[in-house]
């Protein structure tokens, strides 16, 4: 069957409602969170209705079913990412933010002699385009360990400046943590060169895939990174579920972060040993229904086909850029072509403050994000304290882009020229 966003939309009940006094919902805030198809809502509800019990505990049928459902979701995620070591490499967290914090805290727990141990002689590398969730945990880890924080700068066109890669990723670099796709600029970063240099000096690469995994085929056997994090709710799944993938041998060496039930092997009054991965990183009763919901989300995406989703978004992003570029006084913040960029498009419109533009668009039923998008250093670098962001997904179509275009023209008229 031919791909049709209008057909897809029928699977998402939220598009049946209207907003702001009967306006059709034009949802362009997918970079913040995606809408959910019926199959995800049903999977989550059915878990509670039919199988609810604490996974990995209990000597009864429901506990068995809950465990199967939860572990089944782990297998679905492993297959989705093509994890070379299979589902044992998939750690469920409550969010991508938690996954990245897990990495930073776990490294902070590493004793001297452990490959993850950090000290004042070590360096951590990030980029200027990181979301706060992939910047602040590393700042804090540097603060606790004395390690040095370094970063790749961003060019005025919104690309990483790799011209000094060898002096950024130095021989004492232990970790390079970067975003796959900027949540503000839409830029897709060139991983090959960064991974090559990082591995050359023995550094590990952590990839924040929040903005990429929901929108393109991720093949971990090819990417070369060592860890990857993404969130379920941006990929049609529920909130409260995130994923950390890591190479099995690395996860085995990485100390745990959260301690408690499920993550132990043996406990005495003074000591404890850890369960094998991935349980070592999953203390407490996990977010089971949410994991199952994420499994259903991934099955939905896979049934459409990630290549088809990606092609659709690329074509639509080109159309959106073309429409936006035809608006007087509008500037795109980030790459102005569809080359190596995703479907998050940020922009400013002459003197209309993004908050005011967003408010006007909202009055027309158009949902966008405004502000600094949890990336203050990037906003400062780009010289735009705030911007408006439209971000697309598989259910968006040209009519949505046209609505945004007309909305911006409407706002220009409404606020007049300043």
């Amino acid at each position: 069957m031919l791909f049709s966003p209008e057909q897809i939309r029928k699977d998402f009940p939220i598009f049946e409602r209207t907003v702001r006094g009967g306006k059709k919902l034009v949802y362009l805030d997918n970079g913040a969170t995606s809408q959910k198809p019926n199959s995800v809502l049903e999977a989550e509800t059915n878990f509670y209705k039919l199988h609810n019990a604490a996974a990995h505990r209990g000597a009864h049928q429901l506990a068995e079913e809950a465990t199967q459902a939860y572990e089944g979701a782990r297998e679905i995620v492993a297959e989705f990412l093509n994890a070379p070591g299979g589902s044992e490499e998939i750690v469920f967290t409550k969010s991508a933010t938690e996954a990245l914090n897990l990495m930073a805290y776990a490294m902070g727990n590493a004793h001297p002699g452990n490959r993850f141990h950090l000290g004042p002689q070590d360096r951590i590398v990030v980029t200027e385009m990181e979301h706060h969730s992939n910047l602040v945990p590393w700042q804090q880890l540097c603060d606790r360990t004395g390690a040095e924080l370094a970063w790749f700068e961003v060019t005025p066109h919104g690309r990483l400046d790799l011209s000094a890669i060898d002096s950024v990723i130095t021989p004492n670099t232990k970790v390079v943590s970067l975003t796959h796709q900027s949540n503000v600029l839409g830029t897709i970063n060139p991983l090959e060169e960064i991974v090559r240099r990082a591995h050359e000096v023995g550094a590990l690469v952590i990839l924040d895939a929040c903005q990429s995994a929901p929108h393109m085929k991720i093949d971990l056997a090819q990417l070369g990174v060592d860890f990857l994090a993404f969130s379920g709710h941006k990929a049609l799944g529920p909130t409260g579920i995130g994923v950390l993938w890591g190479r099995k041998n690395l996860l085995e060496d990485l100390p745990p972060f959260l301690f408690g039930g499920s993550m132990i092997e043996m406990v005495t009054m003074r000591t404890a040993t850890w369960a094998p991965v991935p349980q070592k990183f999953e203390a407490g009763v996990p977010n089971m229904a949410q994991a199952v919901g994420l499994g259903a989300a991934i099955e939905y995406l896979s049934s459409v086909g990630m290549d088809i989703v990606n092609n659709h978004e690329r074509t639509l992003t080109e159309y959106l850029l073309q429409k936006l570029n035809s608006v007087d006084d509008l500037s795109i913040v980030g790459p102005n072509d569809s080359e190596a960029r995703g479907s998050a498009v940020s922009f400013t419109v002459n003197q209309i403050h993004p908050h005011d533009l967003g408010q006007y668009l909202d009055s027309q039923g158009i949902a966008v994000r405004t502000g600094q998008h949890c990336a203050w250093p990037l906003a400062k670098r780009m010289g735009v304290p705030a911007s408006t962001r439209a971000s697309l997904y598989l259910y968006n179509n040209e009519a949505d882009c046209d609505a945004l275009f007309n909305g911006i023209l409407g706002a220009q008229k409404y606020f007049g020229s300043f």
Partner: protein
Amino acid sequence: MELDSLYQEVILDHYKYPQHKGLSPVFTAQVHHVNTSCGDEITLNLILEGNQISSLTWDGQGCSISQASVSMMSELLIGKTLDQASLISTNFSDLMSSKGTSSGDSLILEDAVAFAGVSKFPGRIKCALLGWMAFKDAAIQAQTD
């Protein structure tokens, strides 16, 4: 349309022609406040003569609501005593939390009753309060210094 209750003409006027914008070279207290969710920021200089506000100047960047609100606040508070200013400020805060049920006391708030519509937009209340929070802070600092 509903939007017009938010963007009253007097608000857009103050946004286009901000009053008392440009910081005084001297001050009794200076504060810098930001709205962390959107990046709006305001620097406010307060000069007290005794208990009276003799000058209130500011600089900043942000949306029409935050900038017009601080502009109108400056007009309203200059010449007032700290006690009067506190009463006005409390009145404005109450209006902002009224969820659209109050049209504001024009005897106290004068033109600033135009912000009554903001209280119907939960996402914008912080914008309208940015300057007022900065003033509260400056008044406390000026009295403790």
